[in-house]
């Protein structure tokens, strides 16, 4: 296995390149993914290398996803890019009513091996519609897999696995982590869809996070450590399927937990995590699980986003709130 130090954007690019090289049926398309290489350069060089297997489309997200459905029905493995989170909403009907349901509709006859890449979430000073954390919409929809990497290594592995998957995957790329650099294991990948990972061991409480919130959780754990509290950090990686086993074992081991996520909290993935972990670990819990999430407001303008996003202090406040006997 080869290792290389890559940014997350580069790791994703590499995953696309390696998948296209290995499998002729992989095609990449969307807005500006051709000569421009995508607004985040994730598809850089693909149209030069693969010709019409990576192509620019008209500006119409429902059309992009709908055409991908048809190509997937007919032997291809499309990987489409939605330029930004909120610009996937025009494709919502196609995603919910077809991408998620075609296999079930046809009793397994028609599979849709397709990947919908969505640069998502905030923290980059983007204006309205460029910062939505839209995972709940997809996670609530049966029939989709929903993943969100937090490291370049996971980005590579998860994207390769998503493209190879017989099921459609909504692939959420935390924009603010595109430029984060790390060692990436290239080549054959071991399965990580459906598998959460413990990013940091800890004994006092468990922080549960995914995508852009993992670095926040890790930093909070670092600070807590200095203050004498040992926080465990679980990175879900995969929202659907959800890894109950790893998450519940982690929470049982500490008896306290905080969920950290950028999305508005109401009826969200965070709600689900609190609900299902509480259902399963009730008697191991010393305190109710707390959520640190974006507020129930539209994503704020750049100058105010720092107030909205779950930050280290807010996470630590929530940890402090977990009814410690000594406090």
């Amino acid at each position, binding site marked *: 296995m080869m290792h290389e130090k890559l940014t997350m954007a580069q790791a994703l690019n590499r995953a696309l390149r390696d998948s296209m090289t290995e499998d002729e049926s992989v095609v990449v398309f969307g807005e500006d993914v051709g000569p421009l290489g995508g607004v985040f350069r994730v598809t850089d060089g693909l149209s030069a290398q693969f010709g019409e297997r990576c192509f620019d489309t008209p500006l119409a997200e429902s059309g992009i996803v709908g055409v991908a459905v048809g190509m997937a029905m007919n032997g291809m493995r499309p990987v489409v890019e939605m330029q930004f989170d909120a610009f996937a909403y025009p494709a919502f009907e196609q995603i919910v009513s077809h991408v998620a349901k075609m296999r*079930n509709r*046809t*009793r397994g006859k028609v599979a849709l091996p397709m990947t919908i890449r969505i640069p998502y979430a905030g923290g980059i000073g983007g204006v309205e519609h460029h910062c939505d954390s839209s995972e709940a919409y997809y996670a609530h929809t049966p029939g989709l897999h929903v993943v969100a990497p937090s490291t370049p290594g996971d980005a590579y592995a998860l994207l390769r696995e998503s493209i190879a998957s017989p099921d459609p995957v909504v692939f959420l790329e935390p924009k603010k982590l595109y430029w984060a650099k790390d060692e990436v294991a290239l080549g054959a990948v071991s399965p990580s869809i459906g598998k959460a990972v413990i990013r940091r061991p800890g004994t006092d409480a468990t922080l549960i996070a995914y995508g852009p919130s993992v670095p926040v959780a890790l930093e909070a754990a670092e600070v807590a450590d200095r203050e004498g509290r040992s926080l465990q950090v679980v990175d879900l990686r995969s929202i659907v399927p959800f890894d109950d086993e790893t998450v519940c074992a982690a929470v049982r081991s500490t008896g306290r937990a905080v969920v950290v996520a950028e999305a508005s909290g109401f009826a969200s993935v965070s709600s689900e995590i609190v609900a299902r972990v509480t259902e399963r670990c009730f008697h191991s819990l010393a305190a109710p699980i707390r959520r640190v999430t974006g507020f129930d407001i539209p994503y704020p303008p750049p100058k105010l986003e720092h107030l909205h996003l779950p930050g280290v202090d807010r996470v630590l406040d929530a940890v402090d709130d977990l009814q410690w006997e000594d406090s």
Partner: protein
Amino acid sequence: MTGDAHHLLPTATPVSLIGPDGHPVADPAHSLPAPGDLRRALAALITARRLNDQAYALVRQGRLAVYPSSHGQEACQVASAQVLADGDWLFPTYRDTVAVVGRGVDPVEALTLLKGDWHCGWDPYEHRVAPHATPLATQLPHAVGVAHAARMRGEPTVVMALCGDGGTSEGDFHEALNFAAVLRAPVVFLIQNNEYAISVPLARQTAAPSLAYKGIGYGIPSERVDGNDVAALLSVLGSAVARARAGEGPQLVEAHTYRMQAHTNADDATRYRTADEVEAWVMRDPLTRLSTFLDLPADDMTAMNDEAERVAAHLRDGLNRDVEPDAAQLFAHVYAAPTAQLREQEALIADELLRDGAAR
């Protein structure tokens, strides 16, 4: 690039080759299909009409939950299937049972959705017929994708994509036509303009001279055809398929027809149209028109009617058979392999059914 724009426009009146009275109509650009093709079409029309009637009867008997009849529109559906080659694809709407059956799908399988047993009753790959799409116009981008994939692999596939007049108002109609044109995908878009979208008449759906005038906005050549004239349909759709197969890109055809019955059995058409209006269309019936024209010997007609009866009986038998609901099916096809969560949920039902069984 605008010099030859006008060739993309349809003719001012729909192409017709056999008039309502059953007499041939001269057309400068289209000739009558071969007699064999017309005979095949007549047989299919007779079966189609019988199928529509049978399905309606099955609704009354409670064997079908709902049925959107294509009575009056059978010519469009028969022709759209007949012009395709085996390797081609059909993308139907919920009203296109006749076209689906025309591709070779068992009518019982074709009506599985409307019976309530499952969402799609046939294997889409067996006859290359997509599951019929309920959300309007959403099947059109799929059709483009199937065509584009085939073209990338150098296959000669053409895709016939059906859509109603109402469906043309949806954004997906627009996006699909545009993608098809830009990708030069071999798709024939057939609009069955039956003058209504449930209760909404065409005049509230569009202010265009006719729906075929939408083609030029995508750079797609467009034609209008009498949707109750199967000869004209075979000719116009046949050449559209040929052009698409020859690499000339997508084609748009608007067929002018009429929905003779209510939207479905659940609809009350008297609320929005008069009996007179419907009556006027009886004179333009696609079936009588072609049979008048062909004027076949009684024996031939009997054979065709017998075949139609056979199909109807098969449908009746099939729909009268009850499929045992199988709870496991709920969880088996959500993903290639059920998630841990789905396995838990399946266990819950299994346990309930076990206890129910024990209690009985």
